[in-house]
């Protein structure tokens, strides 16, 4: 394995080197870096030209400049990168550090969401091949494939941001709107749950009535401006997650799984009350990360030690409960801060920027500010990559379902759940891993457009300005991040193969 990884990394570095050389040559030949100064009427024109030549080292041949850049990158192995300066003499390192954090935040979130939702939709449409749901999703997929990103972005800005902000000033639904929303929700629910005609009608009725009753209630409570879950809400939902996760994995009769999950839920319910002061007064990102890590580790420990024969499943179910419970607690605190946040930022979703400039708020308000600014670009990127993931998952699941071992699994009487997830899905994941790895790099490319439309000061901006000014250093910095990410993800995909498919010995 180690030998394989070393060989792959070696080849990857070779490719990265070749690609960087190619891109460097292309960028410096894409135009004249002094064009704007040559045409300028400034008095100190000669001086400015001299200065820029010095900043960009234009007086040395291109291979010398490339070599200097490469040597600077080489220093990264000694943990002190030097990515050169842009044409105004600003160090690209600091520019990149600022830009990369907002872009990676966006792209990682979008990729994770798209993978989860896309794979889920793919499995569902494969199970219900040629149903109304399948045809609907197929059409939607084609629509998203064909959608010009920048055009969709402007639509999102108009209807999601401006429309929502206007609505939130005085949240209200007319009777007609409530009826329409309830009918649509009921229709979608019966499409997803399917079943016989009678069951579909029942699903539709229950969902529609529930939504029809819930919306006026929430309005009357002022929930859209002052949402809340409360201790009781968090505790109830966490226990519900524990029960349903157990029921979906092995069934409620398996006490060895049920008890650890319930203990985890109880622990979450107690801790959210005990630690309330930490959440309100001392919260920061480190505590958040540590809390998330504990939400994985402690339930794993509980499940593993109590699960006995089912320790793997018990640990998984407990971990799900723990993480969802922790998430709900955080959500509760976001809800508590929402009214205060609205006072600071009356129109919560603004269409420009990755954060509000000069925003003065506590931890929760700042986090909400990041969150509301993330919503639109994330929706856009997620929807676009969602389309391909769901499509590939569907195709891959259908391919696998024709294999003999699926028939064997079914004929030896395994429950449908086990056949789908243990036998079919695990094998269907193999091609998806490759596509996800390749897509990540493409998604950063897509992020260039998204960032431009939403006015983010991210890597896209770094790249576009750099290219526009024929300034290689920022462009190469952009490439260094995307290229390394692409190679890294491919490597991960290869290792992932070996885990998924023991036949692949490397």
């Amino acid at each position, binding site marked *: 394995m180690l030998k394989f990884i070393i060989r792959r990394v070696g080849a990857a570095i070779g490719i990265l080197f070749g690609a960087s050389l*190619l891109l460097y040559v292309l960028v410096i030949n894409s135009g004249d870096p002094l064009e704007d100064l040559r045409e300028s009427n400034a008095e100190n024109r000669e001086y400015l030209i001299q200065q820029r030549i010095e900043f960009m080292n234009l007086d040395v041949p291109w291979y010398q400049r490339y070599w200097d850049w490469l040597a600077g990158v080489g220093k990264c192995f000694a943990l002190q990168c030097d990515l050169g300066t842009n044409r105004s003499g600003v160090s690209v390192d600091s520019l990149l550090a600022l830009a990369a954090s907002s872009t990676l935040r966006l792209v990682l979130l979008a990729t994770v969401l798209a993978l989860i939702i896309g794979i889920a939709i793919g499995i569902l449409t494969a199970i219900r091949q040629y149903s109304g749901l399948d045809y609907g999703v197929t059409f939607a997929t084609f629509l998203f494939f064909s959608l*010009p990103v920048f*055009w969709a972005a402007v639509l999102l800005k108009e209807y999601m941001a401006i429309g929502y902000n206007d609505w939130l000033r005085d949240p209200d639904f007319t009777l007609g709107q409530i009826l329409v929303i309830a009918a649509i929700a009921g229709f979608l629910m019966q499409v997803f749950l399917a079943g016989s005609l009678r069951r579909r009608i029942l699903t539709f009725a229950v969902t529609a009535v529930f939504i029809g009753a819930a919306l006026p209630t929430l309005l009357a409570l002022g929930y859209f401006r002052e949402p809340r879950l409360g201790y009781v809400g968090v505790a109830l939902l966490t226990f519900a997650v524990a029960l349903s996760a157990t029921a979906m994995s092995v069934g409620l009769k398996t006490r060895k799984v049920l008890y650890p999950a319930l203990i985890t839920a109880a622990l979450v319910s107690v801790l959210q009350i005990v630690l309330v002061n930490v959440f309100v007064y001392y919260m920061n990102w480190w505590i958040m990360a540590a809390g998330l890590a504990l939400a994985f580790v402690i339930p794993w420990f509980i499940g593993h030690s109590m699960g006995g024969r089912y320790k793997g499943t018990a640990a998984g179910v407990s971990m799900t409960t723990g993480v969802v419970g922790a998430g709900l607690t955080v959500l509760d605190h976001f809800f508590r801060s929402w009214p205060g946040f609205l006072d600071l930022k009356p129109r919560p979703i603004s269409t420009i920027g990755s954060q509000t400039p000069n925003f003065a708020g506590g931890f929760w308000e700042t986090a909400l500010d990041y969150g509301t600014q993330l919503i639109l670009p994330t929706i856009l990127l997620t929807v676009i990559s969602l389309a391909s993931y769901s499509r590939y998952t569907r195709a891959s699941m259908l391919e696998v379902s024709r294999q003999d071992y699926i028939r064997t699994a079914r004929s030896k009487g395994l429950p449908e759940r086990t056949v789908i997830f243990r036998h079919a899905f695990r094998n269907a994941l193999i091609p998806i891993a490759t596509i996800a790895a390749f897509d990540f790099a493409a998604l950063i490319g897509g992020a260039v457009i998204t960032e431009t439309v939403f006015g983010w000061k991210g890597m896209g901006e770094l790249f576009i300005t750099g290219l*526009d000014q024929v300034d290689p250093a920022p462009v190469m910095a952009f490439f260094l991040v995307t290229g390394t990410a692409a*190679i890294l993800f491919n490597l991960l995909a290869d290792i992932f193969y070996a885990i998924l498919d023991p036949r692949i010995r490397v």
Partner: protein
Amino acid sequence: MSIDKNMNTPGSGDVYSLAEAEDAALLAKDTQSLSQGQLVRRRFVAHKGAMISLGVLVFITLFAYTSVGFAGVPGWWGKSYLDAATTVDGGRPTLSLIPQWLGGSGIAWGDHPFGQENTGKDYFALVMRGTQKSIIIGVVVGIVATAIGAIIGAVAGYFRGWVDSILMRLTDLFIVIPLLVLAAVLGQMAGNLGGSIITLAVVLGLVTWTGLARLVRGEVLSLREREFVSAAQAMGAGSGRIIFKHLLPNTIGVIVVNATFAIASAILLESSLSFLGFGVQPPESSLGLLISQYQNAFTNRPWLFWWPGMIILAIALSVNFIGDGLRDAFDPRQSRKHKRGLFGLTKAKG
């Protein structure tokens, strides 16, 4: 693609005569035997979505080319996309599709069906001109990328060894650089060379062949082990002849389907580049450029924003559906008949 599967192996006499009887029964039915091409055509024509899309695409193409004319030939639409004029009624579009008996103002075409932009240029002419560009880009990129991808893939797969290694590393090189980045850099270069739309299209074709090259290589790697290749080699056919006469025609399905999807993504890529300012430059018109120029006009003059976007969407969507129809037509395994739903949970529709 189709290798004769019902070869009669002489076994015991009984089986042999049974097979013969079966063959005779098949022949007695007056079903006409169809060639591969006919089968593909039939399956494609049966695909409703693809046929509707083909109609839409042909309509848009004819409309765009006849209305404002092309290559010096004047079209039936009198106004040019370059001429400024006085703005009438705030540049509001005069197109009306709601008939009077529904409370609209009747079906009318008017002077400026899509309205006018800031300087009074006719928006219909601008959009049609942009549509022409999109279609040219799609077709040229499709041809260039397909030709390069198919040849590189076939050569790599047929020769294997070091040729394969070099070509595939070259492909990796192109894949590692995000497509949009590579296209933007080359688009910028093409723009500075004073390039026409064709230059831009060729340049885009030079960077979008990688996916097809990988697919064709995979196909050729398995095809080259088949008997007909050995037979051709035994008869003394050269490598060039084997690749172009025997291997590539057998991968036609993969190639055609991918070419279609390449066209759709090329149209989107061009519009993105023009939106970012690295593609088509003003005063020339392009759908992406129009959206970029008027994205802030959405609140006051939404027609400047809706038309180009809807047309990109319509073209890309119909090309993608045609690709889907072609895939179903070329790959009988994808056929919608004789297929059970997954895990037998659902009944397949006929």
